[in-house]
């Protein structure tokens, strides 16, 4: 049986958490940009 490596396992989990956090920041930044351009709705 070939297993995923330990490094892959760790990078996958840390990567997913960082990526998710970045997602929240991107949404906030986009909202501010839309608000500045009066394009929210």
């Amino acid at each position, binding site marked *: 049986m*070939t297993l*995923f490596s330990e490094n892959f396992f*760790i990078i996958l989990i840390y990567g997913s958490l960082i990526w*998710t*956090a970045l997602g929240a920041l991107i949404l906030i930044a986009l909202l501010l*940009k839309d608000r500045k351009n009066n394009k929210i709705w």
Partner: protein
Amino acid sequence: MDSANITLNQGTGWILLAIFSIAWIALGIFWGRKAKDHEGFMLAGRNVGMALGAATAMATWVTSNTIMLAPQFALKMGIWGMLAYSTASFGLFLFAPMAFRIRKLLPKGFTSGDFVRLRYGKAVWVCFLLISIIYSMAWLVSMAMAGGIVLQTLSGIDYIYGMSVILGVCVLYTLFGGLFAVIGTDFVQSLIILIGIVVVGAVVLTKVDLPTVYNDLATTQPALLDVMMPVALLALFNNMFFGFGEVFHNNVWWSRAFAMRGDVSHKAFFLSGCLWFPIPIAAGFIALCAGSMGINVTDIDGVGPLVASQVLGPIGAIVVFVVVFCSLASSIDSLLAATSDLIIQDVYHKMIAPHASDAQLRILGSRIIIGLGIVTWLISLPRLADLNMVLFLSGPLVASAIFPIICGLYWKKANRTGALIAMLLGSAIGLYAYFAIGWFVASLISAAISVLTMLVSSLLAPGKFDWSQLDESKLEEVTAEPIHKS
């Protein structure tokens, strides 16, 4: 339910439930004031920007099932299980160019049913509506059930009370605000979901050592780390096709494509896919840590919230409670709005009362939202056996609609007979596979049968569709012009 697993007392659970219920209803009323007519209620003025567009697509696709099932997938199928769940985001990626084309071909469209009716005619339209409404109900029921289950797991609130409150709150604010309320609250909910998942994951990582978790799994359950796990690989493709089928056919996504500004719809859907992709991994990995932390998992349905609440105590339980409440609300409201649109616009307005006034449609829309809520509540009352079953039973139905939709949007030769047979045959054989083989191949087989049927039929008897027929506003202008006889 093992009472030792409950870390939030019922009183706190009820307080949280009350706070968020009041908040969503108040926001729903606030944003709902923008809806001046039926079209505004249905499509939020067709001018939704990038931030709200991406957030609403992402939040709607992060269902309570994501929070509940991703840890289950991790526990049953390990790394591939989490990756398999993440492939559901591919539906959002691929819908991005479709959203652009939908806005171009149907600038005044209302629902996915409009497209199927104009593209393929009445028989395919009726079949499509049946599939879409059955799936939407299955999705609604699975989420209402998940809401009841997670509230019970986290706070001991009785399943029936928790399920009823969550459903009732979503019905109320969707009723007051239509798509304005849905999209506005989705933005707030998406931020809470993303931040909550990161907080829970980060705190779990402070409690466990990932190399230790890896070594424990490699020793006790190496199959969860196996590079070649056949069932998980099948689940990956099955989930991907399920995601395609769900996103491509469901009016939840089409109504957003119609609601967003034409220049942002494709970008917003692509971004929502990017935001969604890591979530099943970030929310699911905590189940893999259960063994290393000595947590005994007795109820697999609630493994994610159970691990989080065991590791983080009452604060963790509160965070999970709020995240699940937001993910439930962001999906239930969208489904209520989009499914009621489908019933009003396609069933009532197009089939029964073509001359109904704007006010009549608005009133009926409210009644249908209430009716959908009641039907969902009644079906959810007896807690069904397994969340997977409720969700994946409808998988082959929606998978059969993937290729009729894609071919219909891009291929002039796609014909209506092929589309009808593809949906019927794909659904029937997919359902047979579900029971004869397993859930993990049902959508895959349904999609395969559907694409073969669509291709063979359309190549044998190619159609010659005129794309301009999809723009009903132009058709109405033409029929409204006076006829001059020469």
